[in-house]
């Protein structure tokens, strides 16, 4: 019985230690931001896969989709859903180029501030640049080999949408491993990046509509 109790306590502390969140001190925070900025400047291209999960309070099962993403500095992004539907979006020169299973559409972002904000959000979250955006109040915590940046939007356009945006950084390579977009209701979308390649060569055709 005593052994069972001590095992339980040990397990409890291991779990607590591995899941506990420790805030970065000001010096750590400054170093971390500088490192992300350097990484972001060194990043010319990125490509990888993503898994998107949408959680709604009134739906028991999460809604999942996945696909590939491509990024070319400074702000060219292709987001391509492959499952469960074919849908791709290219953020290019202030435009959204949509290919909805063969049906192509072009949206001028200057006429739609909301989509412009959302597009910036996606492009800048991939390479971590979002961290430098002054439109958010951000605080950092360390958690189990990652740094979590909890960002609260200041501007009304985004705060109408999101209560917080969380970026999960790998502390070894400064890649964003996960983005969590938390809505005012508490419902959220989580996007996990996998198989991410840093500065791969990308054919120009990737970004053609």
């Amino acid at each position, binding site marked *: 019985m005593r052994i069972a109790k001590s095992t339980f306590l040990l397990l409890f502390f291991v779990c607590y230690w591995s899941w506990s969140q420790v805030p970065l001190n000001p010096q750590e925070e400054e170093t971390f931001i500088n490192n992300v900025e350097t990484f972001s400047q060194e990043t010319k291209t990125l490509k990888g896969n993503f898994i998107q999960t949408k959680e709604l309070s009134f739906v028991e099962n999460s809604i999942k989709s996945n696909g590939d993403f491509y990024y070319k500095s400074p702000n060219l992004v292709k987001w391509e859903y492959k499952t469960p539907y074919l849908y791709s979006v290219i953020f290019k020169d202030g435009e959204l180029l949509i290919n909805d299973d063969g049906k192509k559409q072009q949206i001028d972002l200057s006429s739609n501030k909301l989509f412009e904000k959302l597009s910036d959000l996606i492009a800048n979250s991939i390479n971590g640049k979002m961290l430098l955006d002054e439109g958010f109040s951000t605080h950092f915590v360390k958690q189990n080999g990652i740094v979590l940046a909890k960002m609260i939007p200041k501007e009304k356009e985004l705060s109408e949408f999101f209560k917080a945006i969380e970026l999960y950084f790998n502390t070894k390579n400064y890649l964003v491993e996960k983005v969590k977009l938390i809505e005012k*209701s508490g419902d959220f979308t989580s996007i996990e990046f996998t198989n991410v390649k840093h500065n791969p060569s990308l054919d120009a055709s990737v970004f053609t509509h």
Partner: protein
Amino acid sequence: MRQFLLISVFFLFFSCGLPTLKNLEETQIKDAPQQIENPYFQNLEASVFKSSINVYGKEVSGILIIKKQEKDISRLAFTTEFGNTLLDITVMPTGYIKNFAIAQLDKKIILKTLAADIRTLTASGLKVGKSFRQAEKKVYLTMLNDYQLFYYFENGNLKEIIKTTKTKEKLKILFEFGEDEQVKLINLAHSGIKLNIQLTPIE
């Protein structure tokens, strides 16, 4: 007697005006159900659709999630493909509760129309009033609030719902099937306004 005749003529006049009735032959159907169940929205599991909404030539696409919460209460959320919720409403038997709507969609006409469409799409347990035949199809007339709903069944599958007033068609809901006999597309087409909603079920 005169009054009865007048009412009959009045009813006949307006009935004849309804295009839905033109190709229907009222008849007794032996195995007619007492009430209509929409087989695609019978249980309380959420249905997820890739959706395309076309309003007066402008197209908006996204993901539509519909979940029946009770027999006559449903909740729907419309999100972008990236998952951002644009609209979240609870459709009540005669109205709706807005849980969230972005400013661009927070218009009474939009919310009311969408709620009415989902109410029609998910309605169940409606008492069958009359039965008709149209070639191979069995057609049942029910009432939902002040509207007539005509349900068209073929080989046991619900193929179409037409919502009408006494004189006009308001909404046609078509169910298209794939080779595996599963619903591949639900098309909601309005008659009075240029609004068309296409729903493609996704897992």
